[in-house]
């Protein structure tokens, strides 16, 4: 089995397919743009995100402040650029964590069946019963507001979807003749699960992970909107909207830009997920 060379070749094929897919390409561009925004904010931002200019409070967009200033005279553009960091960190962090917890549980449930499966499945049902955002809010509240805790809370809310997906796919794959063949020649359980079953889980998991990141971005914004994300004065799009909400009539620029950013990142991940699904189906 020349797995390594094959995976790389297949990987290249997927990226090429993704690039030819309109949704995939647009999504990838958006996501990369916002990752770069988060990474380069310290270099690009015209002002320090926390610097107040008391002579320029609630200024509409101007040459000095391209997107205006907020109620404390801080530059909205600079805060917007810095604000890209927490949704990106929360999206990748929470989904990585949810994958790390959910996939092994789903694999084990699908493989073992019986009582193990019943216990894991009931736990999944329970976590799915509480609306994701409510669960995340409750967890973040009890853990205390911080970016790390928000990421943890979002991860817990995202886990059940990964358990379900991994479990369903494992059951499907276990019925395949080659798995039976591997088992009959004495391949051990751990090796069977990771070498023969797990690779079949990767394509649907990639799609689910990308879509989960879209949800995570909205969840992070919601939590910081409620003051459960990165604590102020640190810039985050959600908390910028909290302020904007109080100035809807007088300073609409405070709400428009951070919301637009959340919207675009979410759309980016959704489109990327759709594109990946279509590309993977075509392969």
């Amino acid at each position, binding site marked *: 089995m020349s797995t390594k060379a094959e995976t790389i070749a297949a990987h290249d094929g997927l990226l090429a397919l993704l690039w030819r897919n309109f949704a995939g390409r647009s999504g990838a561009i958006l996501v990369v743009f916002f990752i770069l925004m988060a990474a380069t904010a310290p270099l690009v931002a015209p002002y320090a995100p926390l610097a107040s200019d008391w002579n320029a409070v609630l200024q509409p967009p101007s040459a000095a402040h391209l997107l205006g200033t907020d109620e404390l005279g801080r530059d909205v553009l600079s805060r917007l650029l810095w604000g890209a960091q927490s949704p990106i960190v929360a999206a990748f962090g929470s989904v990585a964590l949810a994958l790390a917890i959910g996939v092994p549980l789903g694999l084990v449930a699908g493989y073992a069946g019986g009582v193990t499966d019943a216990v894991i499945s009931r736990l999944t049902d329970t976590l799915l019963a*509480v609306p994701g*955002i*409510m669960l995340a809010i*409750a*967890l973040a509240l*009890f853990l205390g507001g911080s970016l790390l805790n928000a990421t943890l809370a979002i991860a817990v809310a995202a886990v059940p979807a990964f358990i379900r997906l991994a479990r369903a796919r494992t059951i499907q794959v276990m019925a395949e003749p080659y798995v039976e063949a591997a088992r009959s020649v004495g391949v051990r359980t751990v090796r069977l699960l990771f070498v023969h079953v797990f690779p079949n889980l990767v394509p649907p998991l990639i799609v689910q992970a990308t879509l989960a990141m*879209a949800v995570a971005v*909205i969840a992070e914004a*919601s939590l910081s909107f409620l003051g459960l994300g990165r604590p102020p004065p640190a810039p985050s799009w959600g908390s910028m909207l909290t302020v904007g909400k109080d100035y809807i009539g007088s300073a609409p620029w405070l*709400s428009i830009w951070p919301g637009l950013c959340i919207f675009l990142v979410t759309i980016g991940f959704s489109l990327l997920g759709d594109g990946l699904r279509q590309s993977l189906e075509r392969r």
Partner: protein
Amino acid sequence: MILLGRLGSILATLFLLSVIVFCLQLLLPGDPATILAGEDRSPETIASIRERFGLDQPLPIQYVRWLGNAVQGDLGMSMRFNQPVVSLVLSKLPVTFQLATMALVIAILIGVTSGIVAAVYAGTAVDQTLTVLSVFGFSIPNFWLGILLIMVVSVQWGLLPASGYVSPLVDPWESFRTMLMPAFVLGSQLAAILMRHTRSAMIEALNTDYVRTAYAKGMPRRRIILRHALRNALVPVVTLGALEFGQLLGGSVLTEYVFSVPGIGKLLVDSVFNRDYPVVQAVVLCSGAIYIVLNLLADIAYVVLDPRIRRGRSA
């Protein structure tokens, strides 16, 4: 029968839900008795609270005691309103139900209609436009859409009230007007989801043999689409709608906050701001329980709607 087996797993799920909600309080950093004491932190008060709430007992005993009370409808007192948590949540539920129901109706009207249209005109510009709109509807954050609508519809045009709540029993028309924007915002995401599912289910149904037969018989197209294809396509959509109703309760949190609609979502947000932990626990528990019951109702609806399942399983 079929549903009896489901009952066992539902009870198990409810049990786990109660364990999770109970365990939430263990996440609180610091001593719960001190937190419950609030402003008054004298050692005597803390000691008496610890005894009153049984916080000096081992955890499993605390849980059993808590569950015993919970089953009798006692989930503790709101620290902020000094009122039983359960009655507080129950008093807010009707508002959220009204909002979620209106959102569901709006979502079905927009989602199913545009899904049918997209399926009938699959591959054309109409289909593509509707699909792009559904991506937008799915990705737009509720609270931002709410803020934008208030900005335009209320502040600029002055058409609809920006916030508040009027009971339909007092003034049905005014109640409808105040709820319209929040319900649209809350339903937008579900509309997008329903549109996608209706579209793919309809495309599938329109390609079946019985639809071809109906065309061959010379049946009018309109009748084929609405009577034959739609009826079959709707089965999974109805189930989805019922399941998503639970998600609407979750989505109502931020929508209610933005529009100041006094339902359980706003109660949750207010409790977050007030650090009113028992209320948060009760809201999570109630929403989870409601979802589990809805799930069961969706299963029943599924059986009623699709005779194949009814016969298939009882045979």
